[in-house]
């Protein structure tokens, strides 16, 4: 599993915004963009942070300043070094020349890496207004962007809006329910004191991905409902799962609603 994650992370860059088929630009009659695109193919020979690869992206930009892809790739690299200013400059340039291609990634990363939930919601709404087809998923494919919008509302403390958006997605797209959608929905219900509804969601979550988080949040709701026996079962399950590493874990960031041993200990001792 660990190695699978490492392989996935190494592929992350190329997954986030696939390199275009250069022939498209040729068919459109744009030979400048076509040439820049052909040059940009050499970037994939290098590790993303390698200055030689970055120099290729710079040459592409010099050759065709309105070609979005090299800006996007540079933004992605700066994001990973936490370089707020360079990230913003390059992702906005990418957006300027390819808003539809850039908005899913910008919406994902604004929330994930800068806690800019308003910015992410605004990007998702804009994308929704620009396309007539399914707006798609966050950059790693974990969440549908509508659910991501709900998670952003949740992080802003707007739980009713979050519930509304996530419930709507689950009902309208039962074929596109994500691995953790019910977990976050359950936590939203819990935050507004609807513990029975929270437990329903957390039980459904087991079908999609059974994690320590599931049992941890269930334990909280059982305690609120004065169900000591169920609380004990849940907290023990959460500990069992935590001990064997069956939890949410992210290589790039701490995930939404992720828990740690510290959180479990705190709940046990309160």
């Amino acid at each position, binding site marked *: 599993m660990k190695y699978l994650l490492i392989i996935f992370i190494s592929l992350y860059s190329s997954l986030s915004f696939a390199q275009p088929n250069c022939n498209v630009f040729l068919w459109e009659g744009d030979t400048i963009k076509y040439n820049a695109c052909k040059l940009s193919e050499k970037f994939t020979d290098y590790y993303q942070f390698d*200055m030689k690869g970055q120099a290729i992206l710079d040459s592409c930009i010099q050759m065709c300043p309105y070609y979005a892809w090299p800006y996007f790739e540079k933004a992605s690299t700066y994001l990973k*070094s936490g370089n707020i200013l360079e990230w913003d400059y390059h992702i906005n340039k990418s957006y300027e020349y390819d808003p539809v291609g850039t908005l899913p990634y910008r919406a994902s990363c604004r929330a994930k890496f800068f*806690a*800019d939930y308003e910015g992410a919601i605004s990007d998702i709404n804009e994308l929704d207004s620009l396309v007539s087809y399914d707006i798609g998923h966050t950059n790693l494919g974990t969440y549908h962007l509508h659910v991501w919008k709900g998670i952003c509302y949740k992080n802003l403390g707007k739980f009713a809006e979050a519930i509304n958006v996530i419930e709507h997605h689950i009902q309208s797209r039962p074929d596109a329910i994500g691995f953790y959608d019910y977990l976050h929905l359950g936590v939203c219900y819990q935050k507004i004191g609807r513990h029975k509804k929270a437990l329903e969601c957390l039980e459904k979550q087991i079908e999609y991905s059974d994690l320590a988080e599931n049992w941890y949040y269930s334990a909280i709701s059982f305690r609120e409902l004065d169900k000591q026996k169920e609380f004990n079962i849940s907290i023990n399950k959460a500990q069992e799962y935590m001990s064997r590493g069956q939890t949410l874990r992210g290589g790039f960031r701490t995930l939404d609603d992720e828990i740690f041993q510290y959180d479990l200990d705190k709940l046990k001792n309160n």
Partner: protein
Amino acid sequence: MISKINKTLLFCVLLSLVSCKTQQDSKTPRWLDDIQYDSKVDKKNFVVCDDDDIYQYFNLGDAIHYNGDKPMLINSFLQNYDSTKVKKESGLIRIRFIVNCHGETDRFRIIQSDLNYKEKEFDKNITNQLMAITKALDGWGQKYKEDGTSVDYWQYLTFKIIDGKIVKILP
């Protein structure tokens, strides 16, 4: 004999030129956003085990590899950061540094922006506190390659500040 001495001298001169070139090359960053040693701000005795191969934080393992995990790291800031003595400013502050193969840290660098990602300079009472607390963090875990060798890695912390208070620590 003279010719042999000349050849030796020529060899030494060429060797010194090559050495100079190598030293210059080593100052050219190989990776994007590499932080070079700066004698004015960095510790002289800080050891980077392999300067040519510093990993990114996400290359091996968890995003925050810290003793007690992210909650312990957050606690360090909650306990030591005093928001009552700072200006009520808002924005993002990123501090990036190296965790070496022994789990020690140095080469701290800071970037600051407003909430629209535009460069700004925060009240020094905010940045100095964040920098001091970050420098004092001593629970960073070592990260290992598959062959068991511990590596150096780049780590960063981004602080979202609202009205002088820390509201989120990322990633």
